[in-house]
Every structure is written in C-alpha cells, then in structure tokens.
C-alpha cells in the first residue's frame, strides 16, 4: 500500500517526515491489515443496529428537519446501571436495578404506546412532504 506524501504533517527539523512515511509503508507491506471497507461495514452494521436508520429529512422555511427511528423511540433501551466504586458500587447498582425494574414495569406500556404514536406521526409527515413535493 502506498501513502501519499501529504498524508503526514510534521514540522520538526530533527524528524524526516518522508523517512517516517517510508518506514510506515514498509511496515504495512510486511503485515496484513484489515480491509478498510470491511471495517466500515462493521461500523455501519453496529450503528444501524444501535442508533437505527434515518426515516426522512426535509427542509421547511430554511430550517432542516431530520427524523431517525430513535427520535420516535422514547424507551431508553441504552440505559445501563453501572458502578465504579469497589465495595459500595455493586450494592448501589443492585438497589438501582430493583427501582429501575419497578419503574420500567409501570412506565414501559405508556412509553411503547407513545413511541408507536411518534412513528405514525413521522410517517404522516413524510407522506405530506412527499405530496407537497409532487405538487
């Protein structure tokens, strides 16, 4: 693999930037690096799974609006109860988990209903924008 000369900017009189690039190139040739496209695919997949996909985007009176799946989803799936303190931490986390489970049992049906409603609103908005664009 070849690295273009402008890739590195190092303005130090004691370090030869060109020699550094040559050394990096040489090392890259002697080892097997992961295909960049493969890594990009991994990131895309994880992103899509966790963050979701964009639903639609439009501009109205100079202001842009973009709606993603998770903007509709108000259930905090990513909420993690963690601890950092060595002894009191696990006890604290255990109590918080109990409280969380109880609150979740109470709130989840309402949040799910609201999420469903939000998605429907976004779908309707999308349709309105499509119709207006056609007109």
């Amino acid at each position, binding site marked *: *693999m070849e*690295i*273009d000369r*402008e*890739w*590195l*900017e*190092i*303005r*130090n009189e*004691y*370090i030869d930037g060109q020699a*550094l690039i040559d*050394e*990096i190139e040489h*090392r*890259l040739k002697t*080892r*097997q*690096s*992961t295909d*960049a496209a493969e*890594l990009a695919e*991994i*990131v895309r*997949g*994880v*992103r899509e*799974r*966790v*963050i*979701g996909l*964009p639903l639609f985007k439009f501009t109205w009176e100079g*202001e*842009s609006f*973009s709606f*993603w799946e*998770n*903007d509709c989803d108000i259930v*905090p*799936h*990513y*909420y*993690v109860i963690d601890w*950092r303190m060595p002894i009191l931490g696990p006890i604290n986390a255990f109590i918080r988990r109990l409280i969380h489970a109880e609150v979740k049992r109470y709130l989840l049906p309402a949040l799910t209903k609201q999420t469903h409603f939000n998605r429907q609103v976004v779908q309707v908005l999308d349709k309105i924008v499509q119709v207006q664009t056609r007109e």
Partner: protein
Amino acid sequence: MQIHQFSATVAYGDAASNHILSVQRMLRELGYQSRIFCDLMPSHFEGQVEPISRYARYSSPDNLLICHFALSYSPVVMSWLRQIPDRKVMIYHNITPDRFFEGIDLVMVKAAQTGRRQLGELSAIMDAGWGVSAYNCAELESLGWRNVDVLPIIFDPARYQIRPACRVLARWKDKFNVLFVGRISPNKCFEDLILTFYELKRSVRPDANLLLVGATSRMQLYMAFLRALVERLDLPDVFFAGHVTNSELIAYYQCADVYLSMSEHEGFCVPLLESAYFGLPVVAYKAAAIPETLGNSGILFTRKDYAAVAELIGLLAERVQWKEQIVAQQRERLQDFTYERIKEQLQHLLSQFLS
C-alpha cells in the same frame, strides 16, 4: 468602569468555564470590577456566580459585558441582551455542527441549529466578537461580524499542581496507553479512535490500552453504539473512564504514552495543550482548529488511514528520541497560551476596544 462576564452556565472541569474564571482573575488584576452572571445557575460555584436577574444593579452604558457563547442562548437571554445598555463583546467558543447529532440527539440538533441562527442575530447586538481561535473568527466573519479578533484559551498550569489519583496510577502505570480526552460526542469520532486502536492492537502493539476520558451526559445512545462496536471488535482493552476529577485527569495524562485525536470538529481543543504539558506526543487528524492550536508542533495526518496511524503510534513508542523532539516542540507552543501572554492580549484588545 466595570467589566462583567456572562455565560449560559458554568460547569466543573469544563474548558470554557475554566477560561471564564481565568478571565475574571485577569480583569480584577487589571483593576476592573468583575463578576460572572449565568442563565442556569450551576451547583458547584456558590458565591462565584450570580443569576442574570441581579445584573440590573450593575448595568450601565459605561460598562462592558463579555458574553461567552458555546451552543445557544435561551430566548430570555437573547431579549435581555437586546435590552441592556452595556457595551457587549462576545467570546465565541464554537458550536458543533448539527449534522453530527443527527440520529443521536434531536434536542442537540435543534440547539445547534438555534445557536447558529442566534450567532447571526448576535452580530447586531454585540460590538465585537473574539474567537478563541482564528478558526472561530473565520466563522464569525462569514456571518457578517465586524471587529473580530482572536483571544485564545488560557492554559493555567496551576490547575494541574495537585496530587494525581493513586487508584488510576496503580491501574494504568507501566502499561502502553493511548489516550483521548473529551466529552463523548459524535464530532470527536470515537468510532475512529476505536478502529485505529483495533489495528494497533492487532498488528502493532498487542499490549496497548485505549483510555477514553470524558463525560457521557446526553450522549447515552452514542455511548451505547461505541460500547457495541467495542464488543463487536472484541476489544476489552478499551476503557471508558467517564467524567473524572482533576486529580484523576492528571493521573490519566501521566499514565499515557500517546495522545490520539480523530476529532473532526474542535473550536480550540484544550487537551492538546494538556498533552504538551504532561509530555505526551500528539497524533491528530487535521481538522477544524486542531492544526492552529498545535501550531507547528505535534503530528498531523490528513486522511483517516487506521492501519497507518497505528503504525505511526507504534513507531513513536519505539523511537524515544523522536517522541522527545515532538514533546519539546509542543511545550514551546504551550508558551503562547500562558496566563501572562493571554493577559497581555486581553489588555491589548480591551484598550483597542475601549478607545
């Protein structure tokens, strides 16, 4: 004459907040009466900060109010700024472009959009705009601001003259650690840090650790994505430290071998200066104000080639002499941001403005 400061809020450990406190010290040393006013009152600054409702008793056309702008102001603040008769200067810390928050946080998207719109409106309210970098000044000028100047962030070593956290030192000392410091935010491209670390770990330094130090507030979804990516790539040596105390921060710097930045948007980037102070060579993606803050120091790369950056980090770890040369140059650059140097600049800007 009085010179007061206003900021939407201040927070413990935040670079902009530290800057506000340092500017207040400077103003008082220069003989001005100086107070700090906030819209949202913080919890850790009792006696140091006052609500804007109390500003009326100090307000005067002879006074100067320095307003710090980082994301957006509330409508209440915007109308308050329009009403007060004081002369006004804005210190611009920059707004992260809204596109970075799309899909992550709708509230941040809107706040960033509002902030950018307000930035245009504020040009008619403020008498001058001082960016913390020339990069920020260019943004102000593109929005039609006049009287634009640079007043960089102050680097105050006194802030780091405390004992480092033993717990952090005990865990990370004598290991090969790559460090990044900054709140968890999509513009800082943590996924690229993780991918570079993946290459580093796989082919260059299997013993390496990646230490990511920064608050996660409001960014839980992005954080969940990063954790899932770490899991998918099977990288147990990526450590998210979260928000840390000053003594913990110092310990992380002391344990690190290289500072790596993949960030695509920074208005200034204080951790670059902190790295110089703690003797860490900086390897950074050339974007936004990063090259300006580094001056001619550090190592910049123009394309995110993860494997090549990993090799570069490996080479820096091997060639101690190179590392020392880079750090020496970074420390030289640090002199441009000392308290005394910035105080001179502030004094010059004030005399220019007030005359």
